[in-house]
């Protein structure tokens, strides 16, 4: 085991990053005064990894939504025990989720850390799928998909993604479609599991008020007990080359809403996961400067009643994609789109304001500090930082060192009208 102590100067706290001999990376952060411990086991396998070259060199095109389906099925065990029942014996709350690039299994519990970690590692490392249980899950997930079909915020987001990306699988819904999940079989699930669920393709993050050394030794012991063999590298995801241009500039959907929901997206130049992870911070500052709560633009559109206070900005990023999103409730999505394009032009002509830059950078730093306050958000932040190959101290320092010039550069390089989309959901 290789252990590294990371000193986070901004927080005046330390944490451990351990490279276990099985390949599992373990992050242990002591959060003084907290009553519960929170652990999250992240697998680098999400909805965008559905096409891949397997370990034998074979190309596989698996059904949309299979990573999410696999997440659901991992909770059933060969000895017929139910994972939720096992956690219920310790009182821990367990859950899981799948996003574009990872599947995460997690629990939150007061005490019983050893028992809970044992359950977590055991169920994720021991798959068990049958025809019968797969069929059962197809019905449940079909209902989940239908629930999202009725969700305007979900629909407006995925329509924006599908308008921006022509080839990248981010354009597809994480859960897939009712038709795509109907083709999933136990064999396919085992294939995906065996290609991605290797310990060296996972990160375990544990936060809570405990002795870090004891927790590291505990995980080491549990990994030995799990009798899990160290596996070789996982499969390689296949991505088609994504054209620079968007697929379509305007996309809309009719749903029973009483106020129109809109998202304006900018497809940015995308790099590797590592690069995009850092670039998101610079973009966040620039978005906040131009469209944030303290911007003249926000004041104008909010005061005039063109948007509600749900107006917000976000950056989505990952391997091969980086996009900016401005979301809002508005009766006039086209007008807002034009105003946003005009505002970007104006900012390019007049240049960004240095004082605003300093305020927005300070604000981003505060946001990062705030994220460390809630155990679930914090564990997830540590997981994402580690997935990208960095540590928390590096991230704080990176943000502190973002220069005004970095921000200025983005406003000229990015936010291109020809790579923008307008997605909205409105009533009939």
């Amino acid at each position, binding site marked *: 085991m290789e252990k590294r102590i990371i000193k986070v100067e*901004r*927080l005046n706290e330390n944490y451990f990053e351990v490279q276990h001999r099985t390949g599992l990376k373990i992050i242990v952060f002591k*959060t*003084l*005064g*907290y*009553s*519960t411990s929170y652990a999250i086991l992240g697998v680098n396998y999400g909805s965008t990894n559905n096409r891949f070259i397997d370990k034998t060199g074979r190309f596989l095109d698996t059904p949309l939504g299979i990573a999410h389906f696999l997440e659901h099925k991992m909770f059933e065990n060969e000895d017929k025990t*139910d994972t*939720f*029942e096992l956690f*219920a*014996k*310790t*009182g821990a*709350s*367990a859950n899981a989720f799948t996003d574009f690039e990872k599947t995460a299994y997690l629990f*939150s519990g*007061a005490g019983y850390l050893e028992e809970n970690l044992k359950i977590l590692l055991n169920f994720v490392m021991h798959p068990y799928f049958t025809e019968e249980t797969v069929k*059962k899950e197809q*019905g*449940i997930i079909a*209902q989940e998909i*239908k*629930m999202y*079909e*009725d*969700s*305007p*915020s979900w629909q407006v987001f995925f329509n924006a993604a599908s308008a921006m990306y022509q080839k990248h699988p981010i354009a597809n819904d994480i859960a897939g479609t009712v038709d795509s999940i109907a083709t999933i079989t136990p064999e396919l699930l085992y294939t995906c599991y065996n290609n991605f669920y290797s310990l060296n393709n996972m990160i375990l993050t544990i936060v809570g008020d405990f002795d870090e050394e004891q927790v590291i030794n505990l995980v080491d012991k549990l990994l030995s007990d799990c009798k899990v063999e160290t596996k070789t590298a996982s499969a390689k995801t296949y991505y088609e080359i994504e054209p620079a241009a968007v697929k379509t500039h305007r996309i809309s959907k009719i*749903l*029973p*809403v*009483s*106020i129109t*929901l809109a998202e304006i997206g900018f497809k940015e130049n995308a790099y590797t996961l590592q690069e995009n992870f850092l670039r998101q911070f610079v973009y966040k500052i620039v978005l906040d400067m131009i469209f*944030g*709560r*303290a*911007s*003249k633009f*926000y*004041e104008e559109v909010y*005061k005039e*009643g063109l948007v*509600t*206070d*749900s107006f917000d900005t976000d950056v989505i990023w990952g391997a091969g994609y980086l996009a900016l999103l401005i979301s809002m*409730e508005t009766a006039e999505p086209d007008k807002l789109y034009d105003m946003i394009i005009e505002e970007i032009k104006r900012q390019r002509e007049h240049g960004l304001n240095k004082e605003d830059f300093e*305020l927005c950078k*300070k*604000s981003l*730093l*505060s946001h990062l*500090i*705030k994220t460390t*306050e*809630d*155990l679930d958000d914090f564990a997830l932040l540590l997981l994402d930082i580690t997935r990208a190959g960095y540590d928390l101290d590096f991230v704080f320092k990176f943000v502190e060192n973002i220069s005004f010039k970095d921000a200025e550069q983005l406003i000229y390089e990015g936010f291109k009208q020809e790579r923008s989309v307008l997605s909205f959901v409105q009533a*009939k």
Partner: protein
Amino acid sequence: MVVRTKLQEGIFFNSIVDNKFKNNVVTIHFILPLNEKNVSANAIVTSVFKSKLKLAEFNKKLKALYDASIFVEVKKFAGCQDVSIGVQYIKNRYTMGNENIAKTAVELLFACITNQLTDEKIELEGKKQELCDSIKADFSDKVLYAKKRCKEIMFESTVCALDPKGTLEGVNKLLEKEVTEAYYRILEAAQIEIISIGDEQCNFIVQEVLAKGFGKITSKKRIQKKLSAYDFRKEEKYVIDKMEVEQAKLTIGFIKPIDFIEDNIAQTCILNNIYGGSAVSKLFCNVREKLKLCYYCGAEYDNFTGGLTVNSGVDKQNLEQASEAIIREFKSMQNGEFSEEDVSKAKLDYKNRLKILTDSLDYLTMWYETRIFEDNPISPEDFCNMVDKVDKQSIVEQARKFIMTTKYVLEGVN
């Protein structure tokens, strides 16, 4: 532990010291009786409070305070309307130069409240639109909408059926005079509960600033918060709404008569947990996992009304089967068809949730808001002790007090 201080007649400061968080939070609750006549006018005062939040210069001041955030909300607790405003700000030790920001943050908060005292005119149309947009937004999320509709039907003919945001019609009819009256009613006549969660020094500063601030506001006799008992409909009612939805939303409501406030809260919470409050509950295991009828099927209990609602999303052709299964599972609770082990698991789960709650500033704030409304400001730790005393018999007793009164379905047009 809550240290409760009376700042003046009808104004209370509730200080909760917690040093582990990196932020402090202060919320000010203006509590008034919920009634049809005033509900929309009181609700629009949230927009008056928000006026400054539209200004870039004001927001820059908040950003300079390490992105302190001010938020407003209007909600209800049974027959009370709660118009609130709060601020969350970072602790001094996480600022770049150990700056003292508590005082400025709370002063900015107070400036939002007293905003209208210095402004001559309320921009009424903008505020009406803002509140109407907020009412309309609640319609977009169909899962939440179905829940809300079911409660409207369950509590019909009582004030508990009212939306604390008011109605579109009520908001649109408001005159400037009525809004001004509501603003002064809230400032001068509402019971005020201030909740400050943070380190001791900051809570002290907050108390000082707010005591001074409210000291300058003319107070009329403040209306003391009052919880009432309601006589809800006991007959069954089935309502179907039709809309362009892919999946039908099914909500079933059960009512238990309570006097003012739930006296058996721990027992009823454990009942709710076994029935539909966890991933090993009867609803999750049977309606979702065994019958495969839905993705979500869970129960919620409101101890201010005694209403328990089950929410689910199912295919239209399975509505009857799902409804029967949900009711059957509740009957099994009334018949005591659950084990001692189920009780132990539910108690453990519930206590774990209470501990998770103490680790979140947002959840902790919500916890104390509710407890202060109940006039029972106990800590989550105290509640754990109450949960420990719950036994199977007491759960069955509580289950038997419920009757199913409402079935609401939001289904597709075709």
